[in-house]
């Protein structure tokens, strides 16, 4: 009886396996991996659904994996063993690292031309960042950056709101500090909140402030050469000071740092543009309780500069099992379609990389994107290196050294020195 049961179970298993893997008729199935959650995820899923509905010959089978290291580890390992998706999202900042591990397959001119995409459709900085060694490894989807979200009611109370509804008096680190102090006095628990327990957030702000001082993080295989190290310490110390003064929360998790702002406990919030939908949706359902706005990060030091990165599409170099030509053709169709429809993606706060959309009337009217779109002019991408980018040694180092310094567990000067030493060793 046992054997019988076993056999029927096995039969059921085989049957189930067969129904699950039976090929759909005449449909090209595209396996798609992304790391997009939250507002990004909702919008990308909507795009995928719309694509599947409009294109009966192609079916996108999407999987969302965990952002950051888990995602990139899976992608890299899968490609090395000849498996993985047909197309995936990829950060341009990580492109040199991805190419160095042999994870990515370049796009040919013919493939781009067939999809109706060309260099002139993209910003030069994005186009350059999508190349490694002269080859195009990714098709940029957007430019995303960090911005300053603010609570108009609280800024008004502290006398920091201009007649135009934009913040005033935030430029220059000493003015910014005064503002934080004033806001803390004007009924806010914190002047500004940001995810002080999240290494990626810390890196973005750190890199912004380093570049605002004209510092270099990496050039000619040297980490923070010359006076850049001192500038890095200044940037770190500025954040540490906010936390030490109680103007910013200590060890705030990513979701908690947002909640502090949306609940009115923090007057300002530094985070990626991708949290715009969170605010928009809350405001729409009247759960925000205050008027909000978002602007480019103020010029805290010498000149304007903001960290930026790009989401892009890439095809993995699946060793021994390359993505077949018909799938590539379908993938190109998918990419082209999503680029054309990236106004919906702009609703997630991003600035589309595709110029025809960015230059369109519809995007120019899209708020709040239009207010902070100026940041694109002074955006600085992560250093182009195989130790930089999302889920790279540089991100790890920010997490291990800058983050503790911001939370008062390490001196700023020591932190940046240790960071430099560790990364310098990684470069050898």
């Amino acid at each position: 009886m046992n054997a019988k049961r076993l056999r029927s179970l096995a039969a059921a298993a085989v049957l189930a396996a067969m129904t699950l893997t039976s090929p759909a008729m005449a449909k090209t199935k595209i396996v798609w991996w992304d790391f997009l959650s939250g507002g990004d995820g909702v919008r990308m899923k909507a795009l995928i659904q719309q694509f599947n509905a409009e294109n009966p010959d192609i079916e996108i089978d999407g999987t969302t994996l965990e952002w950051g290291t888990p995602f990139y580890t899976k992608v890299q390992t899968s490609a090395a063993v000849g498996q993985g998706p047909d197309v995936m999202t990829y950060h341009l900042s990580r492109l040199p690292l991805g190419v160095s591990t042999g994870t990515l397959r370049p796009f040919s001119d013919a493939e781009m031309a067939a999809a109706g995409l060309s260099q002139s459709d993209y910003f030069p900085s994005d186009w350059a960042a999508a190349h490694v060694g002269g080859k195009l490894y990714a098709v940029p989807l957007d430019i995303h950056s960090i911005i300053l979200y603010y609570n108009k009611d609280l800024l008004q109370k502290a006398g920091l709101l201009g007649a135009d509804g934009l913040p005033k008096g935030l430029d220059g680190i000493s003015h910014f500090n005064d503002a934080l102090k004033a806001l803390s006095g004007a009924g806010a628990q914190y002047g500004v909140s940001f995810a002080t327990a999240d290494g990626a957030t810390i890196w973005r702000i750190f890199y912004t402030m380093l570049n605002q001082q004209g510092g270099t993080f990496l050039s000619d295989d040297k980490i923070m050469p010359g006076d850049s190290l001192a500038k890095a310490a200044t940037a770190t110390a500025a954040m540490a000071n906010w936390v030490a003064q109680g103007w910013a929360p200590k060890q705030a998790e990513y979701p908690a740092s947002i909640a502090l702002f949306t609940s009115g406990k923090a007057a300002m919030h530094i985070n990626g543009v991708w949290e715009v939908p969170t605010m928009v949706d809350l405001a729409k359902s009247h759960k925000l309780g205050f008027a909000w706005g978002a602007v480019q990060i103020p010029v805290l030091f010498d000149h304007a500069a903001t960290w930026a990165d790009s989401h892009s599409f890439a095809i993995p170099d699946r060793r021994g099992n390359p993505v077949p030509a018909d799938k590539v053709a379908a993938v190109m169709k998918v990419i082209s379609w999503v680029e054309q429809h990236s106004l919906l993606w702009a609703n997630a706060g991003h600035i589309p990389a595709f110029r025809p959309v960015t230059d369109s009337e519809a995007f120019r009217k899209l708020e709040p994107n239009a207010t902070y779109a100026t940041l694109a002019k002074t955006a600085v991408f992560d250093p182009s290196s195989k130790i930089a980018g999302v889920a790279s040694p540089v991100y790890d180092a920010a997490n291990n050294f800058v983050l503790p310094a911001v939370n008062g567990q390490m001196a700023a000067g020591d932190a940046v020195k240790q960071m430099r030493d560790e990364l310098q060793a990684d470069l050898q």
Partner: protein
Amino acid sequence: MRAGDSAGAHRARRRQRLQALVLVAPFCLAYLVLFIYPTLKMLQLSFTSAPLIGDGAFVGLANYRRLLIDHLFQESVFHTGYFVLLTVLPTTLLGLAIALMVTRLRGWLQSLVLACFFLPYILPVTVVTLIWQWLLDLQFGIAQHAIRLFDGDGVAVFKNPAWAMPMVAFVTIWWTNGFNVLLFIAGLRNISPDYYDAASLDGAGRLQRFRHITWPLIWPVTALVLTIQLILQLKIFDQVYLLTQGGPFNSTYVLVQVIYRQAFVLNHGGYGATIAVVLFAIIAVLSVLQYQVLRVRDTP
């Protein structure tokens, strides 16, 4: 006559050998392919600069020299030791205490209480970590009510370097302690009630009976549990990966995780194999120790 006899015996022996070969072949094949070969391959890889998939150049002892300057590796050795310290002795003592409580009970009550303590042990690790992530959630976790007694604001335990490793150890003990309880219960059942009867007649109290009868007689099981736990906990990976990912600031990075990071995250198969060899060496040495302990137990 004799020749025929010996030829028969010879045939029988040969037949037995053949039958034995058929019976051990599947296991031996699996053992060779999935165990001996990978172990040798690990050693070979540790002398190369191979990526995870593909060949690398022979680099001699370079990978081993790199261990000497690899901070994360050295820290992870230390963290693994810390984790072992936090789990092995507490879980052994707690297992004994719970076993003593359970053996006193009778009938359905004993079964029920034992089931309560044992059930977590049979759960998948991901289920265990999901449950505790929910219980310890900073905003909505029910365990934060208890933590607020010590720290008014509550603590994001897996993000706080002081709390992270002890909490991973705590979750591990909750998960695996049922195993120890069972071993101790078996051990306690083997202690003849005559000893206790005699002690009761002598007027010995609860504590005295424990000290003079239970503790010495249960010691072999205690030693067994200690060594099993020691080796088991040295191999920690799952809970750390799922609860803290090695953070905050690498404060919970452990040995197996460094292997994973080097080989799978950074694509350094050769160096990953080198760290695996180190883990292998540590556990081999401790296993010999365990074997000695078990021998002591087997020869009363």
